């Protein structure tokens, strides 16, 4: 399948600082991709390069297998990390304005603006000025602005930052809906549990370089270690399996990092001899552990 967006070997230096040092990112049509990295890893610079807001020193951005153009970029919906809205515009006027800028006819932009105001739960506030909204509600408007022209690709930079649980749920469902209707979505987030729940595809970058990319399940499977979790019936004994690294665990539990090729049944047997077992799990590491492992290397 031809990738909707293919970013290859992006490099960008600001003076002595190498912001991007070989970023690769591939987004298949109709897929949701989590773009992960620590602060300063180069996520925002990469996203801005895709949008055309930042020029790069080298590397390429391809749209459906050809170099991306300004017209292609207008098919992208973008929600930047630092939110920006016109304070003295009404909610629906604001959304409609960006719809018209993206090429929608005035009446279509207007009806979409009302639809999106309803969809992001601002139906009763669509005639309010932006400056009268809370920060969270302004983020909802920002999301509507990114989506009003029904983009082929949606780029969301830290969309969950600062949102309450209700808004997180709304945003998650909107993102899933978009993917269902065929939109490709790239989003960055530090909430890795949320990313793991939302998406199968991730790209992890650190220091301006792509470290890993692919399906979460595959990355987890390829990890060279597993997590052994033992819940004890009673107090946890002072037990550490052979060739295992103890991990922090809540009271009544023990967690260990063990090699992936170790026999789990042997571990279970050893645990049973050490104490009274309530439950045992032997799983690949979660996305958060993989992420920490990769970026700390």
């Amino acid at each position: 399948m031809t990738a909707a967006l293919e970013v290859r070997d992006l490099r960008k230096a600001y003076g002595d600082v190498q912001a991007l040092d070989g970023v690769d990112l591939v987004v298949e049509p109709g897929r949701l991709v989590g773009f992960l990295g620590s602060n300063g890893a180069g996520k925002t610079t990469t996203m801005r390069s895709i949008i055309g807001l930042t020029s790069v020193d080298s590397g390429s951005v391809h749209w459906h297998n050809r170099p991306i153009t300004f017209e292609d970029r207008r098919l992208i919906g973008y929600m930047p990390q630092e939110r920006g809205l016109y304070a003295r515009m009404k909610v629906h006027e604001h959304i409609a304005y960006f719809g018209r800028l993206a090429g929608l006819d005035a009446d279509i932009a207007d009806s979409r603006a009302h639809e999106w105001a309803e969809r992001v739960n601002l139906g009763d506030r669509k005639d309010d000025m932006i400056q009268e909204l809370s920060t969270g509600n302004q983020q909802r408007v920002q999301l509507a602005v990114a989506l009003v022209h029904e983009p082929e690709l949606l780029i969301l930079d830290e969309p969950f930052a600062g949102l309450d649980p209700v808004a997180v749920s709304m945003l998650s469902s909107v993102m899933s809906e978009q993917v269902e209707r065929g939109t490709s979505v790239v989003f960055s987030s530090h909430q890795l549990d949320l990313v793991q729940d939302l998406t199968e595809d991730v790209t992890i970058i650190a220091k301006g370089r792509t470290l890993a990319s692919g399906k979460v399940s595959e990355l987890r499977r390829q990890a060279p270690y597993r997590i052994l979790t033992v819940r004890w019936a009673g107090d946890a004994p002072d037990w550490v399996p052979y060739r295992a690294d103890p991990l922090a665990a809540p009271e009544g539990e023990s967690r260990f990092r063990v090699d992936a090729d170790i026999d789990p049944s042997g571990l279970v047997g050893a645990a049973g001899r050490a104490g009274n077992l309530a439950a045992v799990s032997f799983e690949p590491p979660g996305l958060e552990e993989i992420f920490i492992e990769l970026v700390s290397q």
Partner: protein
Amino acid sequence: MRSRQIREVALREIVTRGRSNGYRVVTGLMLVLAVVAPIVMAYLPDPTDDLRDVTVGVEAGAPPAFVEQLELLSEGVVDLMVFDLSDEDAAGIEARLRDGRIDVALRPPRRLIWDDTEDSTVANLITAALQQAEAIDRADELGLDVGDLARVFAPIELDDEFVDESSNTEGVRSGVALFGLFIAFLLPQVFGQFTMMSVVEEKSTRIVEVLLSQIRPVTLLAGKILGLSALAIVQLTVIVVGLIASLMTTKIAEVPASVWQFVPLMALSILGGLAIYMTLFALLGSLISRQEDQAQVMLPVFAPLMIGYFVGQTAVFGNAETVLAKVLTWFPLTAPMLLPVRVARSAIGPIEVAVSLGLLALGSYLLFRLAGRLYEFTLLRTGSRVGWGEMFRLSLGRVDD
């Protein structure tokens, strides 16, 4: 698509800026000024009303109609008082003349007595009044109807026509020149700062990132300038219409037809100034990220504005054909102020006007191109302002964003 985006940006500027308090207050104040100024001038005491006082003493024996005729003839010439000297002896009259209580005494039938010098205006008035009063007496003696006689000798009024009208309409032209200069000086400042505020607002709120994902920087700039220019034209029209209505109502000044001929030329140069300064303000606004930093970058814009204004004022009230005035008429940043003044004062030929307007148009275009180019690099810059050196490097195409 680009023209549609320009229109959208322009409309947004018109709607949001048009309903802002700043725009409404400035428009309202200028309209009030334009309407009230002629009214105030109409009710101010006319300096020509301030006629000198003249007291004429009249001894016994003057024709009965003399005082009436003297009062009629003195209207608008001197502020006349007539003093009856019938009961005064010669010494008393002389004393009154010496201490200035009367300016002249008429001793019928033909003698005027002065203190030390003759006032020819007063002497002529008394002579004419005496002549008319005696003519009335003689007509009465001859049995002629005084009304008929008045019709026979009714004064006539001549209409003036001038081959060279310029000196005759000098006052009106100076007034129009001053008005044009004031507008050419004020409008770019008001709307330039609106433009700068709009650019900085988009930068400081970071909405510019979303905008530039859909629209080219130069398109954004063009829309902004067009929208705010439309608001400026509306404001200017409101002011001019208010002024004309007020002038017509108060009838304080009659504007000769020749003055209307150069109004379109003035409007053109004022609009050219508006365009070039709004572009400049937008460019400078893109160098900063906070509204409070505006003062840091505005100084270079005010320098040509102030120079143009002061040289323009000199040209309104003095010589409009100095070398400095001529040179500044060709410089695109001062031409919008000098051109209206020199045109209104008939101190510029058609070729010079064409060259000046051509240079203004060329300067505006080149500045717009440069601003569009710099806008791409400066609009997304945040934090400390872009320095002049860096701006210069960017304008030469040395990019390091």
